[in-house]
């Protein structure tokens, strides 16, 4: 369907013009993203190529000797046992928490979708409330709820014969896991629910007329339809879990004999950057972390997107 040039003067074929116009939709984002994200990232990452030492002696006075060490920091980081121990912990944590969060969010989104329009709004608001509560307040709330001395959960479980101490070393993973789940299911639910709205309603009528029950419809029609969103939320969940920082930092104060300063990779990076003061090494660690997460994300993406037309 290309339009022939009328006057013989070469014109840009309209397909190319269309492609440029299509690309132009992304230009504002790319420009801003390059400036506000890529520039700091490249500047920040350059730290990994150097090693900083004090000028010697007492180390007072701030004199530094900065030497270019190329990829040495990254190699050291890639072999750091503390880092990999932390990595193992967050992976194990993620294997449980990510499916849990995604599963619950999906179920909530499906349940919401099964409701009549009129009541959906209220339920949706209620389910999103934990996400609206800021992190430091959520911490206060759950510290209270978990408290063995004054909180209601321990008392309630006691009354049915279970003796649980949410602050004990044994329960730390469960306590953190619950905190992560509570904080994130609303957010994930909203994204999945939004995706469910684009499912054409007529397909349901047709399926019902074929005799399909609600569960069958949910499983065979709705879930595949939201697969792209589910992959997105799952990737974000994985990335967030591997970068676990706030929850273990909080629980370090109540279970310090278990949760140490470098318990998760993110805590290790923070500690190296701001406590030990070794930004070069911290940057190297975060590059290794980003690579690991990138590989995992790519594997997950490939595995779930075999039939995706992109």
């Amino acid at each position, binding site marked *: 369907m290309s339009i022939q040039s009328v006057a013989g003067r070469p014109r840009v074929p309209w397909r190319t013009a269309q492609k440029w*116009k299509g690309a132009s939709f992304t230009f504002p984002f790319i420009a801003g993203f390059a400036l506000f*994200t890529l520039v*700091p990232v490249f500047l920040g990452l350059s730290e990994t190529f150097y090693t900083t030492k004090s000028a010697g002696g007492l180390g007072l006075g701030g004199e530094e000797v900065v030497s270019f060490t190329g990829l040495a920091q990254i190699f050291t980081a890639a072999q750091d046992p503390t880092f990999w121990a932390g990595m193992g912990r967050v992976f194990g944590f993620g294997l449980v928490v990510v499916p849990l969060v995604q599963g619950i969010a999906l179920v909530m989104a499906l*349940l919401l979708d099964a409701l009549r329009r009129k009541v959906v709004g209220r339920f949706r608001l209620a389910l999103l409330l934990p996400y609206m509560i800021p992190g430091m*307040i959520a911490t206060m*709330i759950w510290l209270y709820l978990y408290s063995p001395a004054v909180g209601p959960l321990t008392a309630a479980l006691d009354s049915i014969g279970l003796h649980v101490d949410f602050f004990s070393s044994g329960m730390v993973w469960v306590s953190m896991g619950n905190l992560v789940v509570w904080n994130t299911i609303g957010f994930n639910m909203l994204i999945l629910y939004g995706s469910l709205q*684009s*499912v054409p309603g007529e397909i349901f009528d047709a399926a019902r007329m074929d005799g399909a029950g609600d569960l069958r419809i949910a499983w065979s029609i709705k879930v595949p339809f939201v697969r*792209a969103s589910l992959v997105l939320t799952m990737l974000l969940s994985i990335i967030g879990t591997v970068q676990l920082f706030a929850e273990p930092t909080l629980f370090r104060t109540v279970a310090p004999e278990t949760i140490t300063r470098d318990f998760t990779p993110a805590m290790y*990076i923070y500690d190296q950057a701001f406590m030990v003061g070794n930004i070069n090494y911290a940057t190297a660690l975060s590059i290794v972390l980003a690579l690991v997460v990138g590989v995992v994300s790519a594997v997950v993406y490939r595995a779930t997107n075999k039939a995706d037309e992109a």
Partner: protein
Amino acid sequence: MSTMTQSTDADGAAPVEAVTGPPVRPRRPARRRREEVEAAAASRGVNRWFVLAALFAFVLYSVGPVWWLIVAATKTKQQLYRTNGLWFADLNLVENLQALFTYQDAIYPRWLANTALYGLASSVGLTLVSLAAGYGLARYSYRGKGLTMGFVIGSFLIPGVLLTIPSYLLYVRLGIFDTVWAMIIPGFFSAFSVYLAKVYAQGAVPAELMEAARLDGAGEYRIFFQIGMRLLSTAGATIFLLHFVGTWNAFMGPLVFLRTAEKWPVMVGLYSWLQRGTDSQYDLTGLVITGALVASIPMVLLMISMQRYWKSGVTLGSLK
């Protein structure tokens, strides 16, 4: 009726049904169809109780803990730690609210206003930029698209802590450090929102619709603004709301990029009050709790007012 008429009727009706689903069954087994529909409705009735019960359980889990916050906001300082956290003691809510709005020269309302400004301005910009970018990524193919996607996903992977100093330097060089622009402009660009928009656009904006519009003579930009954005209303609402909530609750960024206390958003302000208690004789936890409760009200109101954007399946009516 003669077979000819029936088939004509069936044929006459076919084009509409062909687009929306399998053809309507012949009217002969009408009674059976109504029974089927009623049976389906009955089974849906049973399921509806199950759905409500399950949802109610989830709501309890989500909202229950917030109850503590509501109760705590009504307590006096003395009773905050001494009384049962899940039930009221002496009601002190009015005094708490008064203290909240007058403490430190009435800076709290200022913080709320700042946060509203940052949230609204950056979310509007973000929604526009992200919908456009997502739409472009989803509906057009061009070289460099894969690279864009790679960068987008890659940006999720860098822990923010390491970007503090480089970002700070950038903002200083750009002249936006310690200004309201530091909170608004960078907020326009979120790789996550773009990817979300892309995912939604792939589902909600069919290529056929765009072709039909092009045949009608519309230019690409017009298609986006008049058709694409309406179809992407759910995506837009989701992106807007999530970003607004994120901005409302953000405090790491503002902590680094805003120095003046009068420019802080509400969470930085509350965080500063919370930190007072740990190393000084002032314990402002009560103010923080009341402040957090009050601060969540605008978000709730926003969500309620945006209900209408979560529509479903608007696509199909537009096709002929």
